[in-house]
Each structure stands twice: as structure tokens, then as C-alpha cells.
């Protein structure tokens, strides 16, 4: 298990790529974001996006899964206070392969709770063409390494 102390400012994380299918895009959108350009191929062709594309919240969820599987899950995660900024820069289409990278901007032990602290990180997700599809600056709360005893 890793702790707050194991993060350093400037530390870079890279994540394994992941391909998203049309079925996944439609299944998520049916439940959480049923707009025509996330659900219906024909309607999506007429939209500004030019084709069926993933709900931005789905893209965010896929990013979260990449983070949990490859980073957060190895640390003493205590959840997240929030997201400073998230931008859906380009649409994510069926068959796109998404790759995330992240950098630690700040590591700050809590003033009031000595067992934890918060890191601020900047993330960028690209598609297989190298185009940025999503950027995010977000916070994560982590436990501090317990005292040896």
C-alpha cells in the first residue's frame, strides 16, 4: 500500500490504453444521458458531432476506472473532494482507443486531520490520433503513512 507521502510534485503517471465500443456508449447513455447523439446513429449523423459519440460522463467514468485500476487502487485512497475543471475537448466515437496521462501538481497534508492529505493532479486523455479528448484538474484525498510502531 502506498500513501500520501509517496506522491511527489511533478510525478507523471501513464495508463494503459482502452478501446470503447458502440454498445458500451449506447448502454451508458440509455441509463444516464439519453440524448440522440449518444443513442441513435442516424440522429447523431445530423448533429454537430457528425456521428454517435460517448456521453462526457461516460468518458469521465472510463477515466476513473483507468485511475482506480492503475493508480488510486494502489494507494490509501479516501475519496475525492472534487474536480476543479473538466473539459470535453473532442467527441469520443465508437472504436476510439483512449489513453490517459496525469501529473501531480500539489501534495498537501491536511492541517486539521493529521491522518490524511490532498493531492491536486492534471490529467489529459488522448485518442488514437493523438487528439486530446478530455482534460481535467482534480483532487484526491489519501491517507498518510501510519507511524512505525
Amino acid at each position, binding site marked *: 500500500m502506498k500513501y500520501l507521502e509517496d506522491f511527489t510534485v511533478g510525478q507523471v503517471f501513464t495508463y494503459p490504453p482502452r478501446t470503447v465500443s458502440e454498445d458500451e456508449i449506447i448502454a451508458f447513455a440509455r*441509463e*444516464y*444521458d*439519453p*440524448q*440522440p*447523439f449518444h443513442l441513435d446513429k442516424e440522429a447523431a449523423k445530423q*448533429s*454537430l*458531432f457528425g456521428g454517435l459519440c460517448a*456521453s*462526457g*460522463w461516460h468518458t*469521465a*467514468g*472510463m477515466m*476513473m*476506472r483507468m485511475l*482506480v*485500476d492503475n493508480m*488510486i*487502487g494502489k494507494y490509501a*485512497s*479516501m*475519496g*475525492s*473532494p*472534487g*474536480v*476543479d*475543471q*473538466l*473539459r*470535453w*475537448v473532442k467527441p469520443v466515437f465508437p472504436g476510439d482507443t483512449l489513453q490517459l496521462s496525469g501529473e501531480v501538481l500539489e501534495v498537501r497534508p491536511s492541517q486539521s486531520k493529521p491522518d490524511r492529505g490532498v493531492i491536486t493532479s492534471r490529467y489529459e486523455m488522448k485518442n488514437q490520433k493523438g487528439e486530446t479528448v478530455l482534460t481535467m484538474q482534480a483532487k484526491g484525498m489519501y491517507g498518510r503513512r501510519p507511524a512505525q510502531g
Partner: protein
Amino acid sequence: MAAGRRKAKTMQYFEDIHPGSAREIGNHTFSEDAIIAFARQFDPQPFHIDPAAAKRSAFGGIIASGWHTAATVMRMIVDSAIEVEASLGSPGFDDLAWLKPVRPGDTIRARMTCIDKTPSRSRPGIGSARFLIEAFNQNDELVMRYTSIGIMRFRNPA
């Protein structure tokens, strides 16, 4: 999820959006099964998927992924506030805070308040608006808030 009855939509085209106006956009009760199912797929941390581990965590029990809360509120926005003919999607959001845990059995209601709106300078007939989105639990505690940005068409482009 249960979508609930579709409500009359009043925030449709750019002209229909009025800064300062607020409206309730729906409510939803979170079951433990739904919390675990979402988290297994998108946020499989122990305090979202494993009741025993969650009990030992700082949260004291299973809580919903913050992304689950956000996606559920998105569904409320789509069902109550977005006119499909007018909506052109969203470039993103700012200042999202997960302020309190959402637990199994909690009923979350959401409110949407228009902050401001701006016609596009480069694309006639299109504008953007910012909305404060707030989600409250059954005790009226604010559990999540963020500022969303929406892009929409004018009903009557000049």
C-alpha cells in the same frame, strides 16, 4: 434507473434561459445494488463495492461513487431541462465538489440555477449558458455541486 415522469421543459432554446432563475429538476433514490453495480464498472474502490471493507473505511459504510451521483443528476437534467432539438452538448464543467457521501437509501434531489448566458461571437444562432447544479439529500444537506456549461441553439436565429 427509474426515469420518472418527463416534466415540461422550460430551459430549451437560448431565448428560454433566464439568468437567476432556478428550478428543481428531479429526484432519485440510490439502492445499494445500483451503487455497487455502477462502481464495479467505473470506480471499483472498496468503499463503493465491498460492504465489509466500506464499514472499516473512514466512511463507515458503502457510499456511491461521486461519478454515479453526477451521472444520475445528468439524467435528471436530460429528462427535465434539455430540449433535444436545441441542445448542442457541453464543453465541460467547473468547481465540482463532492461535499457529503451518498449512501444506500438516500434520496437525492437536484436544482439547476442559471448563472449567465452568452451568445456565440463566431457562430450566429448559438449560445452558451452556465448553470449552478446542486444536489441535496433527504436531510436537505448539499451533497454535490458544480458549475455546468451548456451550448444551445437560438429558437429564432437572427
